[in-house]
């Protein structure tokens, strides 16, 4: 007995029952649009007010990308985990560990840039697999597991090397200093010479990651399962989704992205130190939230996170342009921004609850 056949020959349904009204936006889409609008407004405002301080220079925007490429990738990893309803606060520590390990690998053990990539990805994946297993299959609280991961990564970094180490490997430095010139984009400097704007190689990687993850979240079974698990765990189970595996894979993917992000970080900063990337996990969480990811899970997008990371960077630029050089001013304005987004999200959730 095939229902498909039965369904198709029935045609006595009143068509007027199907409501033709326009569908309200989904939560993810609404939060994404809010983020994009705020970012654009903020940047345009910066360009108008601080045109003299380089805001109007295209390179200013590209530096935003250059400086935040690693953060973008790490934040994407957090977005994946947060969509599935988890959290990972070990990514900052892991980034420092990856940086230091790669420096030691290249400079002391005779490794090359190619093998260092494997070291970075290997460390990231190990963190993802171990933490994912503990959270998904043993049911330990993700906050606790990744807090332990954070302490472990920081500790291990210090055991490897307590001094700050600058990379001397030539092959690595050549790649790190590669500047991808953009034809036709740039500005005229004080001497009247046209200077082309440039991107670092890490930015290209970050953009590829964002696009790949966007496609994964939207068009693959795994991607949609992440949303289902984060949206309602019990329902996801009843709908036949392998909840544990989905959770586990979310951490593994986050670990892999930490590996990539750690390498981009090293390419940008070209040194290893125990204090590197401190607080970066919190910046990544903030970027995800500003980008429209709900801490409660089920809502978010990597494109939003990308914009979120840039927004976070722009706040810093504006604060500096105003002349408030103290780091605390950046912190305070970021706090205000974060509060704004969290309140906005709460309002959206309350509005939804009221409806249903």
């Amino acid at each position: 007995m095939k229902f498909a056949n039965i369904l198709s020959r029935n045609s006595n349904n009143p068509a007027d029952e199907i409501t033709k009204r326009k569908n309200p936006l989904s939560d993810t889409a609404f939060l994404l649009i809010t983020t994009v609008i705020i970012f654009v407004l903020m940047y345009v405002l910066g360009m108008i007010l601080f045109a003299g301080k380089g805001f109007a220079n295209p390179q200013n925007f590209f530096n935003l990308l250059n400086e935040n490429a690693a953060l973008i990738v790490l934040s994407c990893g957090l977005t994946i985990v947060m969509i599935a309803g988890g959290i990972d606060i070990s990514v900052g520590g892991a980034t420092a560990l990856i940086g230091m390990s790669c420096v030691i690998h290249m400079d002391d053990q005779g490794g090359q840039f190619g093998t260092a990539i494997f070291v970075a990805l290997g460390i990231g994946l190990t963190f993802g697999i171990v933490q994912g297993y503990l959270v998904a299959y043993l049911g330990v609280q993700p906050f606790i597991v990744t807090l332990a991961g954070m302490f472990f990564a920081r500790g291990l970094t210090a055991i490897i090397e307590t001094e700050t180490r600058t990379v001397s490997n030539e092959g690595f430095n050549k790649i790190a200093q590669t500047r991808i010139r953009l034809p036709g984009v740039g500005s005229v400097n004080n001497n009247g010479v046209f200077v082309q704007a440039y991107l670092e190689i890490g930015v290209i990687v970050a953009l590829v990651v964002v696009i790949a993850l966007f496609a994964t979240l939207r068009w693959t079974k795994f991607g949609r399962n992440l949303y289902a698990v984060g949206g309602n765990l019990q329902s996801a189970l009843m709908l036949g989704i392998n909840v544990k595996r989905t959770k586990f894979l979310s951490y593994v993917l986050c670990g892999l992205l930490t590996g990539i992000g750690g390498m981009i970080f090293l390419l940008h900063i070209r040194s290893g130190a125990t204090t590197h990337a401190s607080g970066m996990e919190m910046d990544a969480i903030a970027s995800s939230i500003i980008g429209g990811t709900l801490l409660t899970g089920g809502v978010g997008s990597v494109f939003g996170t990308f914009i979120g990371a840039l927004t976070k960077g722009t706040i810093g630029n504006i604060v500096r342009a105003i002349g408030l050089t103290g780091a605390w001013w950046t912190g305070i304005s970021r706090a205000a921004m974060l509060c704004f987004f969290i309140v906005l999200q709460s309002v959206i959730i309350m509005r939804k609850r009221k409806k249903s």
Partner: protein
Amino acid sequence: MQDTTVLSMRGICKAFPGVRALQDVDFTLRKGEIHALMGENGAGKSTLIKVLTGVYAKDAGEIFMDEIDKPISIKSPQEALNIGISTVYQEITLCPNLTVAENMFIGRSKDFFISWSARNKRTKEILENLGIPASPRQQLSNCSIAVQQMVAIARAVDMECKILILDEPTSSLDENEVQKLFRLMRDLKARGVGILFVTHFLDQVYEVCDRITVLRNGELVGAYEIKDLPKVDLVSKIMGKELDVLANIEKTHVQESLDREDKPPVVQVENLSSVSGIQPFDFSTTQGEVTGFSGLLGSGRSECVRAIFGADRITGGKIKVKGKSVKIRKPKDAMKLGMGYLPEDRKNDGIVADLSVRENIILALQIMKGFFRPFSRSQAEAFADEYIKLLNIKTASSNVPIGSLSGGNQQKVILARWLLTHPDYLILDEPTRGIDVGTKSEIQKLVLKLASEGMSITFISSEIEEMLRTCSRLIVMRDRKVVGELKDDEMTQGRIMQTIAGGAAKNE
């Protein structure tokens, strides 16, 4: 039987520690019928469904499905789905953050990549075909609860289910939405799906169902064609007869009911309504009177007393206590006005399982006194020991955790908790559920004794004879509405059932 049987369950037994949830229950479902499964709390409805859907393993019995000769065994809900048994629960088990189309297909496909256009197109076909007013691209949380439920049903239908279990799907829907759901159910019935419909609403059963199976205390009462069973008979089958052991409790309040009119009301409510959705009702009780709220499960009897006690937020109406208008915003307000409420759900709302018997007993009084002025240990012990003796609570000492006591003794502890506050008006919601016959009769006797000492009591029970023995006046409810009030001579089993079933029942 001229129709094909799509499911037959024979001799199903299931026991939990201390409870026989199902005893030798038979159940058959035909192709293309809507079959109501009815019974009070603890009758075994949900256990039967859970056995069928593989949530529980049965202890004994056999399950057959059509076209399969040998008994089948269902080990998990997933397995049940695969052989064509789908369940739609009262709480929606879909993901609110995904679109309608996604909810239809997620977890079913093996493909790595997703084709949104194909999904949306197929979903649109199904929704239009079943007349479900939703768009495939809509986020599910933007749909009404009724539509969400219909999407869950559509998903089940698209998975080619032969048996569709609807577990109280109508309890959170309004009349209009219920009609839409019924239209969909009839449509599916015409397509040959066997539908098992669990509900507490009598009218809905008579509107949409073909047959009824009634369970009571884990046993099968019978399966009936709907046209052969008038409403009154159905009510009596659901409520059943009570054990004779309890019959010899004497009625002591007949005398008082005569001079009831002279006394001022202790508690009086007018047009009271609450967030639970009950129709506004009037109620009053005088000193020393035992009143009862009677009706089937889900009729709103608990919701009424919860509103009076402030356990559900009040949305309209007036409450007067001893003639004075009062505002009750939370249970503590009611407690200060001299009320007590023994809740229906002892496990979740009554006991604090890990605290000792003593702490459980003094809890309500302590709350009224304030937590920053605790009773001394010796005082608390004196209170506890007094009531343990008074109510004959069987416990090793007042120090053992209440969770280790039997159900009946736990209930007595909760009763002691309220008696300690010396209330003027005490509400007992199902105080005798799930406890042994001996304790039941003790509690009933106690209720009459307290009333004779001047306490006003409201007594609620699923067992009609218990109500007849203890109450001097009965408020009768159906479908969240007060439909009658019976007193003195009017209080007979037949009369109550007729009132519950409604006037129309006489003609059927």
